[in-house]
């Protein structure tokens, strides 16, 4: 099996549904960073058959809300001094600010530079959100 050295400090984003790893890698802008990052695709998994894993060294402030939008079953492991000090399930976020645009073309949040689109979760399964400004529904898709 392919082996990758474990990281000393940073985070491991685990249990990513196979195929979503690359999307997350891009969404988190990991193609542009200057610290070590690893994307593992199609790794064998007990839970998922196959999964993707992302390891990020020396950084722990990753936007969990964004991860939850993409794949709520992801787990995030925080590593310090070679030890896992925290393990979190991300889940679908109840409130989302600024991560995607309102689907209503007439909404003020699509036209005013100083307003951050802001949403409340309406339907967890469909990842459907209601805009705080225009009340319209937006389903998040990556």
């Amino acid at each position: 099996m392919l082996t990758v050295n474990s990281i000393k400090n940073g985070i491991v984003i685990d249990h990513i549904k196979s195929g979503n790893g690359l999307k997350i890698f891009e969404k988190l802008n990991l193609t542009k960073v200057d610290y070590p990052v690893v994307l593992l695709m199609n790794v064998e998994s007990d839970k998922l058959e196959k999964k993707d894993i992302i390891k990020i060294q020396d950084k722990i402030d990753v936007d969990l809300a964004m991860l939850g939008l993409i794949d709520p079953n992801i787990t995030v492991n925080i590593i310090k001094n070679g030890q896992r000090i925290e393990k979190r399930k991300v889940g679908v976020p109840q409130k989302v600010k600024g991560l995607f645009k309102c689907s209503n073309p007439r909404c003020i949040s699509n036209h005013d530079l100083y307003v951050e689109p802001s949403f409340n979760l309406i339907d967890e399964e469909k990842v459907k959100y209601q805009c705080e400004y225009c009340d319209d529904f937006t389903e998040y898709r990556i």
Partner: protein
Amino acid sequence: MSLKGRHLIDPSNFTLAEIDQILTIAQDMQKEPPKYAEVCKGKILATCFYEPSTRTRLSFESAMLKMGGNVLGFSEASSSSVSKGESVADTVRVMDAYSDIIVMRHNREGAPKLASNFSSVPIINGGDGGHQHPTQTLTDLLTIKNLKGEIKNLKVALCGDLKYGRTVHSLIKTLARYENMSFYLISPQQLKIPNYIKEYVKSNYNVKIVETENLDDVISEIDILYMTRIQRERFFNEEDYVKLKDSYILTKNKIQSAKEDMLIMHPLPRVNEIYCDVDDDKRAVYFYQAKCGVYVRMSLMANLLGVLDDVNCK
């Protein structure tokens, strides 16, 4: 209860008891205007109208002037700094310094909500795109209360452009909260009410909703017929507009089978959706509605400004 300092962005910002307080005071203002002639002395209303709406703006101005206050503002975006691309947040922070209460009309949905996040004085939504128009709803409620005595057990038909019709969105969300209401939603397929409103009304209130394309089928059953304009500017192409604009034109002939005490309402302005031979029918109350609009806006502003403490308004 005091409404002082509150915003009105969406009709659900107020409880039914708070709405009732506004209507009751509006009725008293209608009965005894002199009692209120000076309650807003020294107060300034700012009218921030990013898209022109002479009626709504003049209704607010008339309301403030009737209470002894003053008004200032702009009546279209092109004549003000907003044409230079200023953010709503910046405009409102400046207008906030110039006035005691602000009414905002905007073509973008949610703009008054954005404004309320940056204002220390009350913001009133004077209509935002095809979203909400809560002061029209207060106007409609006062009209119904004055003419029907109370707001309950009513079969209400909403007819025309229900997709972009902000007056209809605010009205159905509010009427649904009253006892035993049923709705007939009459519109072309392309202009049906948005799902978010239908889902909200259905999941929160125990109302009956019938959707149909045909007004003639239901006209004999209803207590209120609320007509709306099919607006040219809400269409993306002219062809669709021409095809649909005449779908629902109310004529004297069409209302023959309607109840004797049915109310025909319209937020105005109308184009041709109510033919002028209906105007002298006693059921046609749309001009009376406009009159109610001034009193209800007086009451709303006086409540939000908190100036009624010294007036005995029962």
